[in-house]
Structures are given as C-alpha cells and as structure tokens.
C-alpha cells in the first residue's frame, strides 16, 4: 500500500507523518503520533470525544482523513494550556467538578473553546446546543454548562 506523506501543524508545531489514504486523523494522532489526549468514543461522529480544531474550525477527527491535514493547522487538547498554565475552560472544568470519568473532557474542552472564541457571552441554550455533539454519560451536563458559563466570565474579565 502506498503511504502518503503529510506535513501539517499540530498545536503550532510542524509535524510530518506517513499514513494510508483511508486512515483518519484520529487514528494517526493516537496510534502514529502517540497524541492520545484526543479520544475515540464512537468513530462515527456521534460522540465528539475526538473533537479537534482544524484552522480553528471544530470538527470530529474521526471524520477527517489524515491526508486532509496537509498544510492545515490542527489544535488538540494537548495544545490548549499555555506556559501560563491551564486555559480558563480547563480550570473551570476542574473547579466545577465538570468531569467525572473524564474521557469526554478533552472533546468538551476543545468544543467549548471553539464556542467561546466565536461567542464570548453565550446563553445557556446556546451552550447546550453547541455542545450537543459532545456526549457525556457521567455528569448530566449540569456542571459542564456551568463551567463553560464561568469560563466565559473569566475570559471576559481576566483576573
């Protein structure tokens, strides 16, 4: 099988990899590049655990071919915190106990970031519909919604 050579940027860092044409970005991130922060919950785009940003656009990495990453900017959960520490969304998820098992959390952090980058002051309904593609089976979503609301406040008025 002919492998494709792909040059892409992951969390601001240039990355090269070889992949098969039908391999997904999720599979390459996890199995080839060892970046397992992005999770697989369904591989059919129904759960959002594999959410990443491609050129700041929220997508499921299970529904993106790895080959499509050529020349794109990919952001994964590993690239959300900075030298200064956790991103406010991550911090608020912790403070609000918005994770129990935590396996949906990477996808939710990414999705929430995509939302707040576009809409710094979303209402509860907007948050709920934006995050409808990120399944969480543990929390009932209550604390997740509150964490995102609180993160929006923090981002609007940094301490």
């Amino acid at each position, binding site marked *: 099988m002919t492998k494709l050579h792909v040059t892409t940027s992951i969390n601001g860092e240039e990355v090269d990899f070889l992949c098969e*044409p039908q391999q997904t970005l999720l599979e390459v991130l996890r199995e080839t590049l060892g970046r397992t922060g992005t999770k697989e919950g369904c591989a*059919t785009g129904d759960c*959002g655990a594999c959410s990443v940003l491609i050129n700041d*656009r929220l997508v499921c990495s299970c*529904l993106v071919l790895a*080959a499509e990453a*050529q020349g794109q900017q990919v952001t994964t959960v590993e690239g959300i915190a900075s030298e200064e520490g956790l991103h406010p969304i991550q911090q608020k998820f912790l403070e609000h106990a918005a994770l129990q098992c935590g396996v949906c959390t990477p996808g939710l952090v990414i999705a929430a970031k*995509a939302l707040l980058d576009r809409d710094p002051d979303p209402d509860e309904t907007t948050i709920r519909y934006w995050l*409808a*593609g990120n399944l969480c089976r543990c929390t009932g979503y209550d604390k997740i919604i509150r964490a995102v609301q609180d993160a929006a406040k923090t981002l609007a008025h940094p301490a």
Partner: protein
Amino acid sequence: MGAFAYVAPTRLDEALTVLSEHASQGRRAQVMAGGTDLLVQMRSVDREPRTIVDIKKLAETNRLDLASDPIFIGAAIPSAVLNENADFVALLPGLAEAADLIGSTQIQGRATLGGNLCNASPAGDTIPAMIAVGAVCVIAGRGGTRRLPVEDFVTGVGTKALRPDELLLGLEVPKPAPRSGDAYLRFIPRTEMDIAVAGCGVSVTLDDSGTCTAARVGIGAVAPRALLVPAAAEALIGSKLDDAALAAAGRACSEASSPITDKRGTADYRRKVVGVLCRRAGAIARDRARGN
C-alpha cells in the same frame, strides 16, 4: 482487490480527468466534500477500496455568490460557513436552518449541501429545504455543465442521477422574490444529533394583499427519496395561508408520503408528523414572507 488512494485536485479539469479515467478503466472513484457520511460508510457498510477525490480545494465548489440571480452555493461549503454568513441566512433562512440541523457543531464544520444531496439519503435534512426553494444542481462533466432540479437528482435510496465521471459543482437557487419566505422543520426524538424521522421545507411568496401567489413544499424521510409535493403547494396558492390552508397542505404532505417503519419511527407516525411539520413550517415561512 484494489487499494485506497486519495487525491485533492486544485483544478476542476484535474478532478474531472481523475473521475473519467477511473470510469473508463472500471476503477472506483468517489468524490468527497465534507466526508461526514462517506467516512462512516467506509468503515461500516462499504469498505471497498477506491480513490477518494477531495473536492474541497477547487475554487468553484467553494464559491458562494449571493449577488447573482440565481444565487450559487458551491458544493463543498460547510454548513457552518453558510450559517456564519448573515446575508445567506437572511436570504434563505429555511435552507440555512436545514443546513444548521445536519448533525452536531462538529459535523456542521465539515458537512455540505452538496454532500448531503449526493449521499442521497431519504432523510437528508437539506434536500426538502432545497426542493422548497427551487434549487437546481449544477453538474460538471468532461462534456460540459448540465443542470437538474434537486427533486430529480436523487433517484432512490442512495442513488442519484450523476454519472461516475461527473461531479456536483454546486446549487443554483432563484433569488427569492419580494415578500417571500422559506422554512424547514424536521422531527427527531432528541433535540439534536438524530436523523430526521420526517422533514418538511416550505417556501411561499405573497402578493400585496397577503395572498399566496407561489409556493413549493418538499418533504423528507417519508419516502425512498425527498419529494416535491405539488398538491401541498396548490393548497397554499391563492390562500391567505390561514390555518385551513396550512392544514390542507399538511394533509397533502401526509398523502404524498409513503414511509416505512424502522428504528426511527413507524410509518403511521411519519405520515402524521410530516403533515404537522408542513403546517408549522408553512406558518413560519408565511410570517417570514410577511416580514414579521
């Protein structure tokens, strides 16, 4: 057994050459836009190797022209991009709604009107909405470009009037006349993330007195393919789009449907609910046409 390949041509003639070469050699090529249906199918029902032709790098499939009449919507524009365009949403709110209902935020970042149409599912959300606004497919092939109304494009469950050496470039939608409005509603058991159990798109145009002078109604998920329902339009045209007219149009939709019973709903349920959706979408389209 062949092998998978991936190409992402940047020029239309390159893309068409790949398709026609594969067609003539009896090899399988498949056009990919957002890939949200294709990748799922590749891992489940249809694992056969093929060459994937990614059309997202073509200029034409990414073109959105709202100034022209007809409007042109490139086949590879993700629904999230369409919905971020305030002019598009203002012009075709019903079609925008339908595009906004395809899957999650994540899916909308990739899924396209062109892909939704080419997937040819009976339940594709944007298809009845496109039918309602009179959208026409612009199809490119080696011999040139041809046009086909959306209601004639899908021929059955998963089948379409597209030759293996052709690709869907985009959709032309007649610019809505003054005092026009469109709307799309679908029914799903949850609030998000489901495939439509029934869907209905309605567009109407009113005269100065508020009488409906033109209407189109499309229904989805209630037949092997999305349908244009002329009888529903006839029930609306000439009326003030009052409850009685809307109810008559709803009945026409129920009568035009030939649904199945499956894991998503019973035939009986779908037949009834498509009528409910027609009434409700008709009222929304009417209010939009009235400007309120």
